Protein backbone atom coordinates (compact mmCIF):
# COMPACT_ATOMS: atom_id res chain seq x y z
CA UNK A 1 0.00 0.00 0.00
CA UNK A 2 2.81 2.41 0.97
CA UNK A 3 6.50 1.98 0.35
CA UNK A 4 9.33 4.33 1.17
CA UNK A 5 12.49 3.28 -0.64
CA UNK A 6 15.65 4.88 0.72
CA UNK A 7 13.74 8.11 1.15
CA UNK A 8 16.14 10.92 2.03
CA UNK A 9 15.29 14.49 2.89
CA UNK A 10 17.94 16.84 4.17
CA UNK A 11 17.25 20.03 6.07
CA UNK A 12 19.76 22.45 7.53
CA UNK A 13 20.26 20.53 10.77
CA UNK A 14 18.29 17.34 10.20
CA UNK A 15 18.28 14.45 7.78
CA UNK A 16 15.52 11.92 7.27
CA UNK A 17 16.65 8.63 5.80
CA UNK A 18 14.09 5.84 5.96
CA UNK A 19 12.75 2.67 4.37
CA UNK A 20 9.22 1.69 5.27
CA UNK A 21 6.50 -0.60 4.10
CA UNK A 22 2.82 -0.51 5.04
CA UNK A 23 0.94 -3.54 3.73
CA UNK A 24 -2.73 -3.69 2.91
CA UNK A 25 -5.05 -4.17 5.87
CA UNK A 26 -2.36 -3.16 8.35
CA UNK A 27 -2.36 -0.58 11.11
CA UNK A 28 1.14 0.76 11.41
CA UNK A 29 2.33 3.03 14.17
CA UNK A 30 5.22 5.40 14.12
CA UNK A 31 6.75 6.56 17.39
CA UNK A 32 9.63 8.74 18.38
CA UNK A 33 10.46 11.80 20.39
CA UNK A 34 9.67 15.34 19.27
CA UNK A 35 11.78 16.24 16.26
CA UNK A 36 12.63 12.61 15.51
CA UNK A 37 11.11 12.87 12.04
CA UNK A 38 7.61 11.40 12.40
CA UNK A 39 5.85 14.31 10.73
CA UNK A 40 8.50 14.44 8.00
CA UNK A 41 7.80 10.78 7.19
CA UNK A 42 4.09 11.57 6.97
CA UNK A 43 4.73 14.60 4.76
CA UNK A 44 6.93 12.45 2.50
CA UNK A 45 4.18 9.82 2.19
CA UNK A 46 1.64 12.51 1.32
CA UNK A 47 3.95 14.18 -1.21
CA UNK A 48 4.01 17.40 0.77
CA UNK A 49 7.80 17.60 0.60
CA UNK A 50 10.19 16.92 -2.25
CA UNK A 51 12.64 14.14 -1.44
CA UNK A 52 16.34 14.61 -2.17
CA UNK A 53 16.77 10.90 -2.86
CA UNK A 54 14.66 7.77 -2.98
CA UNK A 55 11.01 7.30 -3.72
CA UNK A 56 7.63 7.03 -2.06
CA UNK A 57 5.09 4.73 -3.66
CA UNK A 58 1.45 4.93 -2.63
CA UNK A 59 -1.03 2.45 -4.15
CA UNK A 60 1.88 1.27 -6.32
CA UNK A 61 2.60 4.65 -7.91
CA UNK A 62 5.14 7.35 -7.19
CA UNK A 63 3.40 9.86 -4.91
CA UNK A 64 4.71 12.68 -7.12
CA UNK A 65 2.74 11.27 -10.05
CA UNK A 66 -0.36 10.23 -8.15
CA UNK A 67 -3.61 10.90 -9.98
CA UNK A 68 -6.48 12.80 -8.31
CA UNK A 69 -8.67 9.68 -8.42
CA UNK A 70 -6.04 7.80 -6.37
CA UNK A 71 -5.58 10.76 -4.05
CA UNK A 72 -9.29 10.46 -3.28
CA UNK A 73 -8.42 7.12 -1.62
CA UNK A 74 -6.37 8.97 0.99
CA UNK A 75 -7.87 10.04 4.29
CA UNK A 76 -5.67 12.47 6.15
CA UNK A 77 -5.58 14.11 9.56
CA UNK A 78 -2.58 16.37 10.06
CA UNK A 79 -1.31 17.35 13.49
CA UNK A 80 -1.29 20.98 12.47
CA UNK A 81 -3.57 22.03 9.71
CA UNK A 82 -7.04 21.32 8.54
CA UNK A 83 -10.05 23.38 7.65
CA UNK A 84 -10.25 27.12 8.27
CA UNK A 85 -11.05 27.74 11.95
CA UNK A 86 -14.01 29.90 10.94
CA UNK A 87 -15.68 26.91 9.32
CA UNK A 88 -18.59 25.03 10.85
CA UNK A 89 -19.42 21.35 10.44
CA UNK A 90 -22.00 22.36 7.82
CA UNK A 91 -19.34 24.28 5.83
CA UNK A 92 -16.98 21.29 6.00
CA UNK A 93 -19.75 18.97 4.85
CA UNK A 94 -20.40 21.16 1.81
CA UNK A 95 -16.72 21.21 0.84
CA UNK A 96 -16.27 17.45 1.28
CA UNK A 97 -19.43 16.78 -0.73
CA UNK A 98 -17.93 18.74 -3.61
CA UNK A 99 -14.53 17.09 -3.22
CA UNK A 100 -15.05 13.34 -2.82
CA UNK A 101 -17.35 11.16 -4.94
CA UNK A 102 -17.69 8.64 -2.11
CA UNK A 103 -18.60 11.19 0.53
CA UNK A 104 -21.97 10.56 2.13
CA UNK A 105 -23.19 13.87 3.57
CA UNK A 106 -26.05 12.30 5.55
CA UNK A 107 -23.79 9.70 7.14
CA UNK A 108 -21.23 12.40 7.97
CA UNK A 109 -23.79 14.60 9.68
CA UNK A 110 -25.18 11.59 11.51
CA UNK A 111 -21.70 10.70 12.81
CA UNK A 112 -21.21 14.30 13.91
CA UNK A 113 -24.48 14.12 15.78
CA UNK A 114 -23.44 10.86 17.48
CA UNK A 115 -20.13 12.43 18.53
CA UNK A 116 -21.90 15.54 19.87
CA UNK A 117 -20.22 17.83 17.38
CA UNK A 118 -22.29 21.01 16.98
CA UNK A 119 -23.27 21.76 13.38
CA UNK A 120 -23.20 25.55 13.51
CA UNK A 121 -20.33 26.27 15.85
CA UNK A 122 -17.03 27.52 14.42
CA UNK A 123 -14.06 25.15 14.68
CA UNK A 124 -12.23 27.83 16.67
CA UNK A 125 -14.87 27.38 19.39
CA UNK A 126 -14.46 23.58 19.47
CA UNK A 127 -12.75 21.90 22.41
CA UNK A 128 -9.49 20.00 21.76
CA UNK A 129 -11.41 16.72 21.84
CA UNK A 130 -14.00 17.97 19.34
CA UNK A 131 -11.27 19.17 16.99
CA UNK A 132 -9.54 15.80 17.13
CA UNK A 133 -12.80 13.95 16.48
CA UNK A 134 -13.77 16.10 13.49
CA UNK A 135 -10.31 15.67 11.98
CA UNK A 136 -10.51 11.89 12.18
CA UNK A 137 -14.11 11.92 11.03
CA UNK A 138 -13.10 13.94 7.94
CA UNK A 139 -10.32 11.42 7.22
CA UNK A 140 -12.70 8.45 7.38
CA UNK A 141 -15.67 10.18 5.73
CA UNK A 142 -15.06 9.09 2.13
CA UNK A 143 -14.11 5.39 2.36
CA UNK A 144 -10.38 6.03 2.08
CA UNK A 145 -8.15 3.01 1.46
CA UNK A 146 -5.27 4.59 3.34
CA UNK A 147 -5.62 6.70 6.45
CA UNK A 148 -2.63 8.83 7.40
CA UNK A 149 -3.08 10.26 10.87
CA UNK A 150 -0.47 12.49 12.45
CA UNK A 151 -0.87 12.65 16.23
CA UNK A 152 -4.69 12.22 16.13
CA UNK A 153 -4.90 11.79 19.91
CA UNK A 154 -2.47 14.51 21.00
CA UNK A 155 -3.76 16.60 23.90
CA UNK A 156 -6.85 14.44 24.51
CA UNK A 157 -8.03 13.00 27.79
CA UNK A 158 -8.34 9.24 28.11
CA UNK A 159 -12.06 9.16 27.23
CA UNK A 160 -11.65 11.27 24.11
CA UNK A 161 -8.61 9.21 23.09
CA UNK A 162 -10.62 6.02 23.35
CA UNK A 163 -13.43 7.54 21.30
CA UNK A 164 -10.99 8.47 18.54
CA UNK A 165 -9.35 5.03 18.61
CA UNK A 166 -12.78 3.37 18.56
CA UNK A 167 -13.61 5.31 15.40
CA UNK A 168 -10.53 3.76 13.80
CA UNK A 169 -11.35 0.26 15.05
CA UNK A 170 -14.88 0.50 13.66
CA UNK A 171 -13.47 1.78 10.37
CA UNK A 172 -11.12 -1.19 10.07
CA UNK A 173 -13.96 -3.60 10.81
CA UNK A 174 -15.98 -1.99 8.05
CA UNK A 175 -13.06 -1.79 5.61
CA UNK A 176 -10.63 -4.60 6.47
CA UNK A 177 -8.58 -4.01 3.30
CA UNK A 178 -7.78 -0.43 4.34
CA UNK A 179 -4.48 0.53 5.96
CA UNK A 180 -3.71 3.09 8.61
CA UNK A 181 -0.49 4.90 9.41
CA UNK A 182 -0.72 6.58 12.77
CA UNK A 183 1.86 8.59 14.63
CA UNK A 184 1.53 9.22 18.32
CA UNK A 185 3.41 10.16 21.43
CA UNK A 186 1.02 8.12 23.52
CA UNK A 187 2.35 4.61 23.40
CA UNK A 188 -0.69 2.96 24.94
CA UNK A 189 -2.73 4.20 21.97
CA UNK A 190 -0.41 2.44 19.58
CA UNK A 191 -0.15 -0.73 21.69
CA UNK A 192 -3.89 -1.08 21.63
CA UNK A 193 -4.44 -0.61 17.93
CA UNK A 194 -1.29 -1.14 15.82
CA UNK A 195 -0.17 -4.34 14.13
CA UNK A 196 3.41 -3.12 13.84
CA UNK A 197 5.44 -0.19 15.01
CA UNK A 198 8.28 1.80 13.55
CA UNK A 199 10.45 3.69 15.95
CA UNK A 200 12.30 6.66 14.59
CA UNK A 201 15.24 8.54 16.06
CA UNK A 202 17.18 11.40 14.47
CA UNK A 203 15.49 10.73 11.13
CA UNK A 204 16.31 7.02 11.04
CA UNK A 205 14.23 3.93 11.76
CA UNK A 206 15.86 2.23 14.73
CA UNK A 207 13.26 -0.47 15.35
CA UNK A 208 10.53 -2.03 13.26
CA UNK A 209 8.68 -4.74 15.10
CA UNK A 210 5.25 -6.33 15.40
CA UNK A 211 3.39 -4.93 18.40
CA UNK A 212 2.75 -8.45 19.72
CA UNK A 213 6.47 -9.17 19.71
CA UNK A 214 7.26 -5.93 21.52
CA UNK A 215 4.75 -6.80 24.18
CA UNK A 216 5.70 -10.46 24.48
CA UNK A 217 9.45 -10.61 23.84
CA UNK A 218 10.77 -7.24 24.90
CA UNK A 219 11.46 -6.62 28.57
CA UNK A 220 13.25 -4.30 30.91
CA UNK A 221 15.79 -5.81 33.32
CA UNK A 222 16.68 -3.98 36.50
CA UNK A 223 20.00 -5.19 37.90
CA UNK A 224 22.68 -4.12 40.33
CA UNK A 225 26.13 -3.18 39.03
CA UNK A 226 27.54 -6.52 40.26
CA UNK A 227 24.87 -8.55 38.45
CA UNK A 228 25.21 -6.34 35.38
CA UNK A 229 28.93 -7.17 35.12
CA UNK A 230 28.15 -10.91 35.11
CA UNK A 231 25.08 -10.64 32.85
CA UNK A 232 25.15 -12.27 29.41
CA UNK A 233 24.65 -9.25 27.19
CA UNK A 234 24.02 -11.12 23.94
CA UNK A 235 20.37 -10.07 23.90
CA UNK A 236 20.73 -6.69 25.58
CA UNK A 237 19.83 -3.95 23.13
CA UNK A 238 20.49 -0.94 25.32
CA UNK A 239 21.61 -0.27 28.89
CA UNK A 240 21.28 2.78 31.06
CA UNK A 241 23.09 3.56 34.31
CA UNK A 242 20.87 4.19 37.31
CA UNK A 243 21.50 4.93 41.01
CA UNK A 244 20.89 1.31 41.96
CA UNK A 245 22.75 -0.25 39.04
CA UNK A 246 21.57 -0.68 35.47
CA UNK A 247 18.35 -0.86 33.54
CA UNK A 248 18.60 -2.93 30.36
CA UNK A 249 16.33 -3.48 27.38
CA UNK A 250 16.17 -6.94 25.88
CA UNK A 251 14.26 -8.46 22.99
CA UNK A 252 14.63 -11.97 24.47
CA UNK A 253 12.69 -11.84 27.71
CA UNK A 254 12.45 -15.64 27.93
CA UNK A 255 16.21 -16.07 27.87
CA UNK A 256 16.65 -13.91 30.97
CA UNK A 257 13.59 -15.37 32.72
CA UNK A 258 15.09 -18.84 32.38
CA UNK A 259 18.73 -17.98 33.11
CA UNK A 260 18.43 -15.18 35.65
CA UNK A 261 15.39 -15.93 37.81
CA UNK A 262 16.70 -13.66 40.59
CA UNK A 263 16.63 -10.39 38.61
CA UNK A 264 13.69 -8.03 38.18
CA UNK A 265 12.18 -8.42 34.72
CA UNK A 266 9.36 -6.12 33.70
CA UNK A 267 7.26 -6.69 30.61
CA UNK A 268 8.22 -4.39 27.77
CA UNK A 269 6.05 -1.65 26.43
CA UNK A 270 6.52 1.07 23.89
CA UNK A 271 7.33 3.72 26.48
CA UNK A 272 10.26 1.61 27.72
CA UNK A 273 11.32 1.06 24.15
CA UNK A 274 11.33 4.79 23.43
CA UNK A 275 13.17 5.68 26.64
CA UNK A 276 15.78 2.94 26.34
CA UNK A 277 16.37 3.26 22.61
CA UNK A 278 16.77 7.01 22.79
CA UNK A 279 18.57 7.37 26.12
CA UNK A 280 20.32 4.04 26.54
CA UNK A 281 23.80 3.12 25.35
Amino acid at each position, binding site marked *: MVELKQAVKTYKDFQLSVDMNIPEGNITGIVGRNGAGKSTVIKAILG*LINLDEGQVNVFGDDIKKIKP*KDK*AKLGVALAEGG*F*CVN*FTVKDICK*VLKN*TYDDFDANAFMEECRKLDLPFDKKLSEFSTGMKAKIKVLIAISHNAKLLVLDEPTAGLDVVARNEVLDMLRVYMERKPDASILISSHISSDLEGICDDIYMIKDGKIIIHEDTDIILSKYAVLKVSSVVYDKLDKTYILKSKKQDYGFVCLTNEKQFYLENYPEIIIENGNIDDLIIMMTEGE
Partner: protein
Amino acid sequence: MKGLLTKDFSITMKRKSYILLITAISMLLMLTGQSNAFVVGYLTSIAVVLCINTISNDKNDNSMAFFMTFPVSKREYVLSKYIMAGCGTACSWVIGCIMELVYACIKGNLVGFASDIYGLLLIIFLGAVFGAIFIPIYLKFDNEQIKMIMLIIFGGIALISVAAAVLIDFLEKIVPFNTMELHFNLSEAAVLALILLIIAIMVIISYVTSCHIMEKKEF
Protein backbone atom coordinates in the same frame (compact mmCIF):
# COMPACT_ATOMS: atom_id res chain seq x y z
CA MET B 1 -11.50 21.58 -7.79
CA LYS B 2 -15.17 22.13 -7.11
CA GLY B 3 -14.43 21.47 -3.43
CA LEU B 4 -11.66 24.07 -3.35
CA LEU B 5 -13.93 26.65 -4.96
CA THR B 6 -16.71 25.82 -2.49
CA LYS B 7 -14.20 26.27 0.33
CA ASP B 8 -12.95 29.63 -1.01
CA PHE B 9 -16.49 30.86 -1.63
CA SER B 10 -17.45 29.88 1.94
CA ILE B 11 -14.39 31.66 3.37
CA THR B 12 -15.18 34.80 1.37
CA MET B 13 -18.81 34.75 2.45
CA LYS B 14 -17.67 34.60 6.09
CA ARG B 15 -16.60 38.22 5.58
CA LYS B 16 -20.11 39.49 4.87
CA SER B 17 -19.74 42.52 7.13
CA TYR B 18 -16.54 43.55 5.34
CA ILE B 19 -18.21 43.11 1.93
CA LEU B 20 -21.18 45.21 3.07
CA LEU B 21 -18.85 47.90 4.38
CA ILE B 22 -16.97 48.10 1.07
CA THR B 23 -20.26 48.25 -0.84
CA ALA B 24 -21.46 51.04 1.47
CA ILE B 25 -18.22 53.00 0.93
CA SER B 26 -18.64 52.56 -2.84
CA MET B 27 -22.18 53.95 -2.61
CA LEU B 28 -20.91 56.87 -0.59
CA LEU B 29 -18.22 57.56 -3.20
CA MET B 30 -20.91 57.40 -5.90
CA LEU B 31 -23.18 59.81 -4.02
CA THR B 32 -20.31 62.27 -3.51
CA GLY B 33 -19.93 62.52 -7.27
CA GLN B 34 -16.89 60.30 -7.94
CA SER B 35 -16.64 59.05 -11.52
CA ASN B 36 -18.29 55.77 -12.48
CA ALA B 37 -14.92 54.21 -13.31
CA PHE B 38 -13.44 55.20 -9.95
CA VAL B 39 -16.31 53.73 -7.94
CA VAL B 40 -16.48 50.48 -9.92
CA GLY B 41 -12.67 50.30 -9.93
CA TYR B 42 -12.55 50.67 -6.16
CA LEU B 43 -15.16 47.96 -5.64
CA THR B 44 -13.53 45.60 -8.13
CA SER B 45 -9.98 45.98 -6.81
CA ILE B 46 -11.08 45.36 -3.21
CA ALA B 47 -13.15 42.33 -4.29
CA VAL B 48 -10.21 40.80 -6.19
CA VAL B 49 -7.87 41.24 -3.23
CA LEU B 50 -10.55 39.71 -0.98
CA CYS B 51 -10.72 36.65 -3.22
CA ILE B 52 -6.95 36.31 -3.51
CA ASN B 53 -6.75 36.69 0.24
CA THR B 54 -8.14 33.14 0.52
CA ILE B 55 -4.52 32.10 -0.13
CA SER B 56 -3.56 33.89 3.09
CA ASN B 57 -6.40 32.14 4.88
CA ASP B 58 -5.05 28.80 3.69
CA LYS B 59 -1.66 29.73 5.12
CA ASN B 60 -2.99 31.19 8.38
CA ASP B 61 -4.71 28.01 9.44
CA ASN B 62 -1.95 25.87 7.94
CA SER B 63 -4.67 24.51 5.69
CA MET B 64 -2.71 24.53 2.46
CA ALA B 65 -0.89 21.28 3.33
CA PHE B 66 -4.22 19.66 4.16
CA PHE B 67 -5.83 20.81 0.90
CA MET B 68 -2.88 19.37 -0.99
CA THR B 69 -4.05 15.94 0.22
CA PHE B 70 -7.40 16.50 -1.54
CA PRO B 71 -7.90 14.82 -4.92
CA VAL B 72 -6.55 17.85 -6.76
CA SER B 73 -3.19 18.67 -8.28
CA LYS B 74 -1.13 21.71 -7.34
CA ARG B 75 -2.03 23.19 -10.75
CA GLU B 76 -5.71 22.81 -9.99
CA TYR B 77 -5.20 24.57 -6.67
CA VAL B 78 -3.54 27.46 -8.52
CA LEU B 79 -6.29 27.48 -11.15
CA SER B 80 -8.94 27.66 -8.43
CA LYS B 81 -7.37 30.90 -7.19
CA TYR B 82 -7.48 32.46 -10.69
CA ILE B 83 -11.10 31.36 -11.06
CA MET B 84 -11.91 32.94 -7.68
CA ALA B 85 -10.18 36.18 -8.72
CA GLY B 86 -12.10 36.10 -12.02
CA CYS B 87 -15.41 35.52 -10.26
CA GLY B 88 -14.63 38.29 -7.76
CA THR B 89 -13.86 40.68 -10.61
CA ALA B 90 -16.99 39.78 -12.55
CA CYS B 91 -19.38 39.90 -9.58
CA SER B 92 -18.05 43.17 -8.16
CA TRP B 93 -17.98 44.76 -11.62
CA VAL B 94 -21.59 43.79 -12.29
CA ILE B 95 -22.69 45.01 -8.84
CA GLY B 96 -20.77 48.27 -9.31
CA CYS B 97 -22.26 48.83 -12.76
CA ILE B 98 -25.79 48.09 -11.54
CA MET B 99 -25.28 50.58 -8.69
CA GLU B 100 -24.09 53.21 -11.15
CA LEU B 101 -26.89 52.43 -13.61
CA VAL B 102 -29.58 52.74 -10.93
CA TYR B 103 -28.04 56.01 -9.73
CA ALA B 104 -27.88 57.30 -13.33
CA CYS B 105 -31.56 56.39 -13.80
CA ILE B 106 -32.53 58.22 -10.61
CA LYS B 107 -30.54 61.27 -11.72
CA GLY B 108 -31.85 60.93 -15.27
CA ASN B 109 -28.32 60.85 -16.62
CA LEU B 110 -28.26 57.64 -18.66
CA VAL B 111 -26.32 59.36 -21.44
CA GLY B 112 -23.50 60.13 -19.00
CA PHE B 113 -23.46 56.48 -17.88
CA ALA B 114 -23.38 55.24 -21.47
CA SER B 115 -20.43 57.51 -22.26
CA ASP B 116 -18.47 55.87 -19.41
CA ILE B 117 -18.91 52.32 -20.72
CA TYR B 118 -15.43 52.29 -22.26
CA GLY B 119 -13.83 53.25 -18.94
CA LEU B 120 -15.96 50.70 -17.09
CA LEU B 121 -14.85 47.93 -19.43
CA LEU B 122 -11.25 48.79 -18.68
CA ILE B 123 -11.97 48.16 -14.98
CA ILE B 124 -12.44 44.45 -15.76
CA PHE B 125 -8.87 44.46 -16.98
CA LEU B 126 -7.78 46.11 -13.75
CA GLY B 127 -9.15 43.07 -11.90
CA ALA B 128 -7.21 40.75 -14.22
CA VAL B 129 -4.01 42.75 -13.69
CA PHE B 130 -4.46 42.62 -9.93
CA GLY B 131 -4.97 38.86 -10.08
CA ALA B 132 -2.00 38.34 -12.38
CA ILE B 133 0.30 40.33 -10.09
CA PHE B 134 -0.91 39.29 -6.67
CA ILE B 135 -1.64 35.56 -6.98
CA PRO B 136 2.03 34.55 -7.49
CA ILE B 137 3.08 36.97 -4.73
CA TYR B 138 0.54 35.52 -2.31
CA LEU B 139 1.66 31.99 -3.18
CA LYS B 140 5.36 32.72 -2.93
CA PHE B 141 5.66 34.80 0.22
CA ASP B 142 4.45 34.43 3.77
CA ASN B 143 1.72 36.69 5.11
CA GLU B 144 4.03 39.17 6.85
CA GLN B 145 6.14 39.58 3.72
CA ILE B 146 2.98 40.06 1.63
CA LYS B 147 1.92 43.05 3.78
CA MET B 148 5.27 44.70 3.12
CA ILE B 149 5.15 43.90 -0.61
CA MET B 150 1.60 45.28 -0.91
CA LEU B 151 2.75 48.47 0.79
CA ILE B 152 5.65 48.78 -1.64
CA ILE B 153 3.48 48.04 -4.70
CA PHE B 154 0.70 50.47 -3.80
CA GLY B 155 3.22 53.09 -2.68
CA GLY B 156 5.08 52.57 -5.95
CA ILE B 157 1.87 52.93 -7.99
CA ALA B 158 1.04 56.18 -6.15
CA LEU B 159 4.55 57.54 -6.68
CA ILE B 160 4.61 56.59 -10.37
CA SER B 161 1.16 58.15 -10.88
CA VAL B 162 2.24 61.42 -9.27
CA ALA B 163 5.55 61.41 -11.16
CA ALA B 164 3.79 60.69 -14.47
CA ALA B 165 1.28 63.52 -13.89
CA VAL B 166 4.09 65.95 -13.05
CA LEU B 167 6.11 64.81 -16.07
CA ILE B 168 3.19 65.15 -18.50
CA ASP B 169 2.39 68.58 -17.04
CA PHE B 170 6.00 69.62 -17.50
CA LEU B 171 6.24 68.24 -21.06
CA GLU B 172 3.01 69.94 -22.09
CA LYS B 173 4.50 73.27 -21.04
CA ILE B 174 7.71 72.90 -23.03
CA VAL B 175 6.37 70.84 -25.98
CA PRO B 176 2.73 71.65 -26.64
CA PHE B 177 1.00 68.40 -27.47
CA ASN B 178 -2.27 66.78 -26.56
CA THR B 179 -1.92 63.75 -24.32
CA MET B 180 -4.89 62.22 -26.10
CA GLU B 181 -2.60 61.82 -29.12
CA LEU B 182 -0.95 59.03 -27.16
CA HIS B 183 -3.80 56.86 -28.42
CA PHE B 184 -1.86 56.73 -31.70
CA ASN B 185 -5.04 57.34 -33.62
CA LEU B 186 -6.29 53.83 -32.85
CA SER B 187 -10.00 53.25 -32.46
CA GLU B 188 -11.35 52.49 -28.99
CA ALA B 189 -12.04 48.90 -30.07
CA ALA B 190 -8.46 48.44 -31.27
CA VAL B 191 -7.09 49.85 -28.01
CA LEU B 192 -9.39 47.53 -26.09
CA ALA B 193 -8.20 44.55 -28.14
CA LEU B 194 -4.57 45.52 -27.58
CA ILE B 195 -5.08 45.84 -23.84
CA LEU B 196 -6.91 42.52 -23.83
CA LEU B 197 -3.98 40.85 -25.57
CA ILE B 198 -1.41 42.36 -23.17
CA ILE B 199 -3.46 41.28 -20.16
CA ALA B 200 -4.03 37.79 -21.54
CA ILE B 201 -0.24 37.43 -21.88
CA MET B 202 0.19 38.77 -18.33
CA VAL B 203 -2.32 36.28 -16.93
CA ILE B 204 -0.70 33.35 -18.76
CA ILE B 205 2.78 34.32 -17.50
CA SER B 206 1.34 34.79 -14.01
CA TYR B 207 -0.38 31.36 -14.08
CA VAL B 208 2.77 29.57 -15.27
CA THR B 209 4.80 31.36 -12.57
CA SER B 210 2.24 30.45 -9.89
CA CYS B 211 2.27 26.79 -10.98
CA HIS B 212 6.07 26.80 -10.82
CA ILE B 213 5.97 28.31 -7.31
CA MET B 214 3.50 25.66 -6.16
CA GLU B 215 5.49 22.80 -7.69
CA LYS B 216 8.53 23.89 -5.69
CA LYS B 217 6.55 24.60 -2.54
CA GLU B 218 6.88 22.31 0.46
CA PHE B 219 4.50 22.10 3.38
